[in-house]
C-alpha cells in the first residue's frame, strides 16, 4: 500500500510531540511541517522534514493526504476548513474547536469536502484505556455502578507566567485544558452523560480562571460518576502522573480512577481487579481477592497517527470523529456553565 503523506501545522508543545512521533514512524511520509514562528525550522530540519512558515503555502505546494493541526484553539476552524477545501483529511488537536458553533462549521466543512475529521483525544489510543473500556463494556465487573475520577497535580508558578499569562484567564484553566480529557475518557469508556452539576472555585489562586472543580454526573447507563479536580494542591494523583504516558510529569504509580461494578472494582492505571472469589461469601464482612490485568503498553500518540493513516487509507474508522469530539466539548462547556449558573445541566 502507498505510504500516507502527512503534513503538520503548528509546532508548539503538542505539535512538536506529533512531529517527533511522525518522524519515527516508517509506514508514513512526514512530508512537511509549518509554523508562523521561523525558529521552528531548526526542529523540522533535525527531524528531516521540510519547513514552511505559511501553512497555505505548504498545502498548495506539497502533495499531502492529510494534516495534523495543532494550532491555538481559535484557529482550528479557519485552518481546518482551508485544509478540508484542499481535500486533506484532518487530525485536529483537541478540543475540536473553540466553541460549539465553530465545531459544527468544521464538521460541515469536512462533510462537504468529503474528508475525514478525526480529533486528537489521544488517550483513547492508550491500551490501558482500551482495556478498561473492554472490561466495563464487556460486563467483566458486572453492571457499572459508578466511577470516581481524581486529578490533583500542582501547576507550578511559571505555568502561568510570561507568554503563558493566558492560562490565568477564563478559558485557559483546568476545565478546558485538563478536564476535557477526563470527560472524553468517561464518555469513551461508559457512554453518554445525561446530567451534570459542578461547583467551580478560584479561591486558592484568586486568578480569573478556576483552580478547583467538583462534579457529579449521571450516565445514560444509570451509573453515576464523581470528578474532583484541582491544580493548586501538592498531590500525586492524576492521569498524566499515574499512567507515565508523558514523562514530563513526575511518574507516581497511584490510582486516579476507580470503576465500581456490581461484580468487581477496577483501579486505574494500576489495572487491578477486586472481587469476591466465592459468590456465597460476597459482602462487607469478607475479604476481596485481587487480580492483576496484564497489558502491553504502547505509545498512544504513535497509535493515534497510525489510526489516522488507516482512516486515510480507508482500512480503519477514526477512534473519535468530529461529532463525537463535539459532544465531549459540549459536556466540558456545560461544566463551566453549571459552575457559573449554579444549576444542573441536562443533555
Amino acid at each position, binding site marked *: 500500500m502507498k505510504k500516507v503523506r502527512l503534513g503538520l501545522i503548528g509546532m508548539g508543545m503538542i505539535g512538536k510531540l506529533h512531529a517527533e512521533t511522525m518522524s519515527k514512524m516508517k509506514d508514513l511520509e512526514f512530508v512537511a511541517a509549518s509554523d508562523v514562528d521561523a525558529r521552528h525550522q531548526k526542529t523540522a530540519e533535525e527531524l528531516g522534514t521540510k519547513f514552511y512558515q505559511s501553512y497555505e503555502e505548504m498545502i498548495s505546494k506539497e502533495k499531502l493526504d492529510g494534516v495534523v493541526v495543532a494550532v491555538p484553539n481559535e484557529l482550528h476552524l479557519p485552518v481546518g476548513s482551508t485544509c478540508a477545501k484542499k481535500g486533506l483529511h484532518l487530525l485536529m488537536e483537541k478540543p475540536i474547536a473553540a466553541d460549539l458553533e465553530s465545531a459544527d462549521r468544521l464538521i460541515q466543512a469536512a462533510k462537504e469536502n468529503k474528508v475525514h475529521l478525526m480529533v486528537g483525544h489521544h488517550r483513547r489510543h492508550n491500551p490501558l484505556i482500551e482495556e478498561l473500556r473492554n472490561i466495563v463494556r464487556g460486563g467483566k465487573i458486572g453492571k457499572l455502578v459508578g466511577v470516581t475520577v481524581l486529578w490533583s497535580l500542582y*501547576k507550578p508558578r511559571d505555568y502561568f507566567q510570561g507568554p503563558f499569562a493566558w492560562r490565568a484567564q477564563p478559558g485557559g484553566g483546568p476545565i478546558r485544558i485538563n478536564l476535557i480529557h477526563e470527560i472524553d475518557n468517561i464518555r469513551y469508556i461508559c457512554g453518554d452523560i445525561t446530567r451534570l452539576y459542578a461547583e467551580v*472555585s478560584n*479561591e486558592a489562586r484568586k486568578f480569573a480562571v478556576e483552580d478547583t472543580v*467538583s462534579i457529579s454526573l449521571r450516565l445514560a447507563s444509570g*451509573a*453515576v460518576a464523581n470528578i474532583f479536580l484541582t491544580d493548586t494542591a*501538592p498531590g500525586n494523583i492524576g492521569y498524566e502522573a499515574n499512567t507515565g504516558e508523558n514523562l514530563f510529569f513526575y511518574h507516581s504509580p497511584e490510582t486516579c480512577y476507580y470503576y465500581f461494578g456490581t461484580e468487581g472494582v477496577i*483501579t486505574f492505571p494500576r489495572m487491578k481487579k477486586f472481587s469476591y472469589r466465592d459468590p456465597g461469601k460476597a459482602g*462487607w464482612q469478607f475479604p476481596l481477592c485481587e487480580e492483576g490485568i496484564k497489558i502491553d503498553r504502547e505509545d498512544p500518540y504513535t497509535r493515534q497517527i497510525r489510526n489516522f493513516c488507516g482512516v486515510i487509507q480507508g482500512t480503519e474508522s477514526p477512534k473519535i470523529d468530529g461529532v463525537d469530539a463535539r459532544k465531549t466539548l459540549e459536556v466540558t462547556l456545560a461544566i463551566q456553565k453549571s459552575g457559573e449558573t449554579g444549576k444542573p445541566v441536562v443533555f
Partner: protein
Amino acid sequence: MEKVRLGLIGLGLMGTPHARILKKVAECDLVAASDVDEKQKAVTEELGIKFYRRYEEMIEKEKLQGVVIVTPNHLHTPIGIACAQKGLHLFVEKPIAQSVSEADRLIEAAKQNKVCILVGHQRRFSTLVEKAREIVTGGELGKLVGVTITWALLKPPPYFEGPLSWRREKGAGPILINLIHEVDNLRYICGEIDELYALTSHKIRNFPVEDTASITLRFKNGALGTIFLSDCTPSLTSWEGTSGENAYLYYDFGNCYNFFGTEGSLLFPQMKRLYYSDPTKIGWNYPITEQGYKMVREDPYVKEFSHFCRVVLGKEDPRTSGEDGKRTLEVTLAIQRSGETGQPIHLA
C-alpha cells in the same frame, strides 16, 4: 474519682454493646438499663445492673445524672424531652432526631431544663479523625481547597431480608444510615457545608431506597468536595473498610478520604501528608515528599462516654452539641432532598 450515675435506654443492636462499654469506662457508674423487651434483662444481669421495662420508672426511681438514649430514631425526641424534664443530661445516639423540627424541640427542652446534649457521633473521638482535624484546621495543608470521600461497599443480601426488609424502603438507605457519619466527619474536620447537590440511583437493586449516590459540596470556607456512595459494589474503599474501627467489617488499608490544601494533601486513614519539601522544586514535574504520622489507636466509644461523664460534671463542653447534631442531620436530609428533586440546595 467522682463517678457519674448513668442509665441506658434501649438495649438493641447498638444499646447492648454501649452498655458493655459503659461498664468499662472508669468515670461511669452505669446503674440501670431499660428496654420494652423483657428478654433484654439477660444483658443487665450479666452486667450486674438493674433492669426496667419502662424507662419512665427507671428515671423516676434511680438517682441518675444522665441517660444514654439508644432507642429507635423516632423516640429520641419524646424520650429525650422526658429525661431533660427530670434534669438528666442526655447522650443521644445519632441521628439526634428524625427531623430538624424534632431536633429543635429536643434542643429547646434541654435548654429550658439546663441539661446538656451530646450526640453520639463517635467518629469524632477516633484518634484518626482528631489528627486529621488538627492537620486541616491547624493549617498544615495551607488553605483547604477540597476533599473527596469514597464510601463503596457491598451490603450482603441478608441485610435486606426477613425482619430487616424495612431497609429496602426510602429513608432507610445509605444516605440516612451511613452517609450521616461522613457528613459529620466532614463538618468536624473541614467546617460548615453551605451548598450541595446529589445524584442518586437505585438502578442496581431496584429497591425504593437509593443504592448509589454522587454528591458535590461547597464549604463556607470556599473548599469543594465530592462524595461517592454505594452499597452495592465490592467493599474496596470506605471508612468502615479502611479505618479498622468497625469490628464486624473486614478491612484493608486504602484511603477513604483525601484532603487537599494549597500546601499539601492528606491521605486518610493512611495518614500520609504529601508536600514539596524543596521550595525550588515545586510542581507536577517534581517528586513529592511523603510524611507519615504515628498514630495511637484508642477505642472511640470509650473516649466518647468518658467525655460524656465530664460533660455531665460540667468539666467539658459537648464535642457534638445538639445544634451540631442538628446541623449534621440537616445537611444529610438536604442531600436526600437534592437527590429527589434533582436541584442543588443552598443551606442558610
